């Protein structure tokens, strides 16, 4: 019995979160096989075969998996996963979309967004927006799990030499199709994997003022995020949201600018290694979690910060 990790990729490259998920698989223990399902995904499969500690790469190359739609992916992972003790995927919007289908098809429950492996059948995961950490023991024959990347350090992308094996596609039911996609184009790193994140909140006052944060971010090679308040106010799009209902990040440095620090937001960033808060309200709850707090008007402090980097 081994562990099957369903890779997240764009057919050409392996997404970083997959390396964290493989790390979780190794923490459970056992042979780790990686499933790469896509169309024209040979490059992604090759990348997976080089990841340290992977035993075997299964490749399902078929038009049905081009966009990794939940219906086709759920069926495939259930079919291939039958012989495994655990099936893991990253807790991304792709993994969260298809993996519960896989669990239901296998007639087992699922454990979402684990942040720690206690043993092969026991896992820790945040509940109530991160206000409590539950330790859950599963008696299911196959453990179906999504992994929160911030809980596990990624394994090395190089150093492995796994065998690559083609597997057959499961007949597509044709009930869903890809219509279109609008991805935010940015030269900055993705929020989820960035080493440094600088986020703005309601204190930014409008979308134009985020330009100040972009300038700092470009100097630091940082990603830019936002609080839900800033998203709800329409300053920036939702895919920038850091928090329980947005993205969960844990960079080396997190800079919160004009963010009061609602529980909702803290749930998305409190595992960052170093937190800096810039806010003019010295009573703001964000200061209770910040390693370095600067009580100042952000409209003066941020440009000054940019000048000094």
């Amino acid at each position: 019995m081994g562990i099957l990790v369903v890779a997240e990729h764009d057919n050409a490259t392996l997404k970083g979160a997959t390396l964290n998920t493989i790390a979780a698989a190794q923490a459970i223990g056992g042979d780790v096989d990686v499933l790469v399902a896509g169309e024209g995904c040979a490059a992604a499969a090759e990348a997976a075969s080089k990841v340290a500690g992977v035993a075997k790469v299964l490749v399902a190359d078929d038009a049905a998996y081009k966009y990794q739609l939940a219906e086709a992916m759920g069926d495939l992972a259930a079919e291939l996963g039958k012989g495994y003790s655990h099936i893991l995927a990253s807790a991304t919007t792709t993994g969260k979309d298809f993996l519960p289908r896989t669990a239901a098809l296998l007639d087992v429950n699922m454990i979402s967004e684990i942040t720690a492996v206690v043993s092969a059948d026991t896992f820790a995961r945040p509940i109530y927006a991160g206000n409590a950490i539950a330790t859950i023991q599963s008696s299911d024959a196959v453990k179906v799990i999504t992994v929160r990347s911030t809980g596990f350090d990624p394994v090395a992308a190089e150093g492995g030499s796994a065998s690559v094996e083609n597997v057959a596609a499961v007949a597509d039911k044709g009930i869903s199709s890809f219509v279109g996609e609008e991805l935010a184009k940015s030269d900055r790193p993705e929020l989820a994997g960035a080493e440094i994140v600088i986020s703005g909140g309601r204190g930014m006052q409008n979308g134009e003022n985020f330009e100040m944060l972009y300038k700092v971010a470009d100097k630091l090679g940082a990603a830019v995020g936002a609080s839900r308040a800033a998203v709800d106010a329409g300053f920036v799009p939702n895919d920038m949201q850091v928090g329980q209902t947005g993205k969960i990040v844990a960079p080396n440095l997190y800079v919160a600018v004009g963010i009061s620090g609602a529980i909702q937001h803290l749930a998305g960033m409190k595992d960052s290694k170093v937190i800096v808060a810039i806010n003019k309200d010295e009573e703001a709850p964000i200061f209770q979690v910040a390693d370095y707090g600067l009580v100042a008007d952000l409209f003066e402090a941020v440009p000054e910060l940019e000048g000094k980097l």
Partner: protein
Amino acid sequence: MKVLVAVKRVIDYNVKVRVKADNSDVDLANVKMAMNPFCEIAVEEAVRLKEKGIATEIVVVSIGPKVAQEQIRTSLALGADRGILVETEEKLESLTVAKALKAIVDKEEPQLVILGKQSIDNDNNQTGQMLGALTGMAQGTFASEVAVDGETVNVTREIDGGLRTVGLKLPAIVTTDLRLNEPRYASLPNIMKAKRKPLEVVAPADLGVEIKSTQTLVKVDPPAERSAGIKVGSVDELVEKLKTEAKVL
């Protein structure tokens, strides 16, 4: 077309939950309960579909304790037509909930099932997708836009890095994300009217659903506390500390 909406009774989102002293669970004694916020968005979306003339009947279902009737009544006050409570006082795992919902789907044969993407208590984000697999329906999860067009529905989904639109054959499942809509408040006359709308109560056994548990809650801990650090006096001092003390720049 008929729309089925699933709602869950959870802790009110304004309440800060506390872990019990014996670490056995969170403490929900005397805590204010309410409809899960994502479920409110699901009800609102169904009501809007009815106002547009697309939905003809909205059935609201909840699986949970007797008091979950309150959340069904709230949904009826917001514009749903009738309610079903699958009543059980037992603790439920997602697969059981999905199986109970499948039994309701088989009976009611809705063209669209709308659920919240996750409940704010267990944060599982599983039930809608599981229902999709059990019923063989397609799904549009984390929806920010729902457009029904004849025999299909186009769902725009919030994904990492942007938006994706998928086309689904009806009947289909939609799970709601925050930006799908802004739920309305129930008016007093509608709350009064809701009291007279039909609410059927069934037992899981009536639906042929066995309540099975495969997950044991070993313990619940409060999250690791971060202690407050220091206040710096200037941007210069901040940059200096980040370089020499924290070594992150």
